[in-house]
């Protein structure tokens, strides 16, 4: 175990040289490794000078949570323990972050819903913690399969939501996530999502910087709300506690604060653009009139379909959304220039991304939007299913 007092101006408590996020993500030389999403998350957290992590077992995120525990045992993470259940864990994470810690936790599917009351509380208290959500289906019936239905429940919690497609993106995003969430003008929680198993358990080649460097520590005294550590003057003397009074102050406080939380998420855009190289990534035929709008591993499947369709003479492109909150409306509209037909393939039954896309494009773009193919419960989404959706739609239009 380490002591925070071992940290110097140039090195953190585990002896890693402190570097900027730009150096870590863009400049530091990288070497090729072959690892799973869970393993790569350990490598990311190892390089982030993380103060605190709280864990709880649930498939498929358990391994990632174990590995963060190993980092604590090895002296890289300041404090770590297993909580009693996800509601407790997310409350413990809130306590850690309120007390001024760079804090990370992980969960999946049902755990997300058990903890749900905490997420708007996180954003309401403006803590910049990171939840790595390894998406999984939601009961009932019991399932552990990759399905991302729980993300739909997170959309209006006031947290930022980023979505990584693969192991490499999980590494880079989970590092950038701390930095963007901790910007004083943002300072809201961030949820970094990957699809369970498809990313958490799949071994891929990945380029990593050396592990003798790490991010500069979190600076809690730059927080828009003072950390709860008895080191700064407390706010006090509210003669009318606004929470309980049905008066104008109560309305005004709640209204302005709720807008402010959402504005803070909006203010993350320029930082996210910088660290993620844009909020959307487009691949395929630039001048295609058919586009797939995707996130996560559905992007990977759509890219395969794009290549297969190209062989048949049908030009398409894949517009991968990297942030869901804030939603990249402007970037999506630009990427859809000239597109007449949009397909939104998804790994969930409700089609939450389709709804997001339709809301963003309403009265702004004339393309037809098809919510499909849509698979759920962890069913796979082969290229053929995506192609079938395209053919049915196009033929249906009499093409």
């Amino acid at each position, binding site marked *: 175990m380490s002591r925070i007092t071992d940290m110097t101006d140039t090195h953190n408590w585990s002896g890693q040289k402190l570097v900027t996020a730009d150096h870590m993500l863009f400049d530091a030389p990288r070497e090729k490794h072959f690892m799973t999403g869970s393993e790569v998350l350990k490598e990311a957290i190892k390089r982030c000078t993380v103060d605190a992590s709280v864990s709880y077992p649930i498939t498929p995120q358990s391994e990632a949570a174990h590995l963060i525990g190993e980092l604590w045992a090895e002296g890289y993470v300041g*404090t770590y*323990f297993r*909580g009693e259940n996800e*509601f407790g864990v997310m*409350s413990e994470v809130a306590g850690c972050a309120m007390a001024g810690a760079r804090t990370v936790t992980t969960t999946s599917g049902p755990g997300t819903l058990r903890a749900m009351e905490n997420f708007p509380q996180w954003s309401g208290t403006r803590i910049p913690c990171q939840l790595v959500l390894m998406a999984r289906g939601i009961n009932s019936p019991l399932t552990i399969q990759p399905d991302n239905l729980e993300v739909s429940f997170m959309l209006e919690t006031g947290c930022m939501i980023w979505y990584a497609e693969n192991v490499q993106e999980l590494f880079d995003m989970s590092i950038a996530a701390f930095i963007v969430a901790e910007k004083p003008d943002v300072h809201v929680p961030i949820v970094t999502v990957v699809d369970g198993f498809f990313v958490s358990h799949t071994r891929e080649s990945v380029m990593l910087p050396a592990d003798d460097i790490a991010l500069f520590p979190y600076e809690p005294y730059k927080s828009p709300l003072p950390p709860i550590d*008895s080191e*700064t003057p407390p706010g006090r003397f509210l003669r009318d*506690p606004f929470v309980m009074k049905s008066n104008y102050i109560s309305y005004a406080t709640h209204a302005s604060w709720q807008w402010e939380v959402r504005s803070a998420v909006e203010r993350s855009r320029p930082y996210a653009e910088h660290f993620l190289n844009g909020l959307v990534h487009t691949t395929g035929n630039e001048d295609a009139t058919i586009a797939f709008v995707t996130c996560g591993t559905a992007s990977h499947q759509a890219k395969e379909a794009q290549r297969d369709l190209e062989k048949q003479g049908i030009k398409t492109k894949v517009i991968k959304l990297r942030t869901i909150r804030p939603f990249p409306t402007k970037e999506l509209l630009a990427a859809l220039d000239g597109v007449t037909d949009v397909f939104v393939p998804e790994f969930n039954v409700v089609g939450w991304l389709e709804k997001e896309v339709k809301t963003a494009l309403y009265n702004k773009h004339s393309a037809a939007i098809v919510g499909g193919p849509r698979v759920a419960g962890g069913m796979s989404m082969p290229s053929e299913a995506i192609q079938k959706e395209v053919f049915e739609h196009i033929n249906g239009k009499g093409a």
Partner: protein
Amino acid sequence: MAIDIYKINPEFRDIMPKEIIDLEENATWAQNQEKPRGIKELPETKEILEEHSLCAGCPEAAALRYVLSALPKPEETIIVNSTGCTSLMFPHIALHTVHSLFGNQNAVATGIRRVLDWRFPDTEKDVVVLAGDGATVDIGLDYTLQSFFRQENITTICFDNEVYANTGGQESGATPKGQVFKMAPTGKKFEKVKMWELAVTSGCHYSMNMTASAPKSVAKAVREAILVAREIGPTFLNIYTPCILEIGLSANEGLGEMKDQDKDRFASFKHVSPEAEEFLKKCKAEGKL
């Protein structure tokens, strides 16, 4: 940092409200004390609780004043609260306090405790949970007991008014059997949960059941519980603060009700583990009590 955070910037002194200046000049901060703080100073010094917005004569407000006057080191104390009548008073406390959700107080306090230990390894900081019986015994029971199991260095104080008062008088787990309240229109069907006994079984090193009828006793218990939590492990105080409104008493009848209950449901229960007992003896010898 501690006491320095209460010193007013001279540039702003002329526009500061009197209560803030009083806080700097006349509050009983531990750092300014020769001997332990205590309720004796309440009449002459600036209290850490400015005002309160509870009902006239509410015993909970009095109990909170006793608790705050007895904190061994208020300038290094963080209090975690839950939803209920107590959350109405928290905005008036001149310390770092947290209101998070209903029932998660011991989980939030755990996170704070762990991180304070990590960030300030050489500074004694106290974490105190203060919540009602609904938060402690019902909705937050899991998190309360789990923090005891984990041996968190936290003091948990339950202001037990035996009812969900702030929501309009519903039965809670701490309500005595047979009592008619809302949601128990024919009377409560099971016994009052003996949280102070659960605390002992779950690993608390100091557990008391008492009323707030005797200010000195409350102050002594608070002080001992916090010192034990700081050094040894979790501690628990269950303090009867009746909801006079819900049991049909007048503003001047709260004290009488508590005195009556000193002999009944809140007859004194005190558990001190052998380690805690030895530690408290040492504290006494050193003049900390």
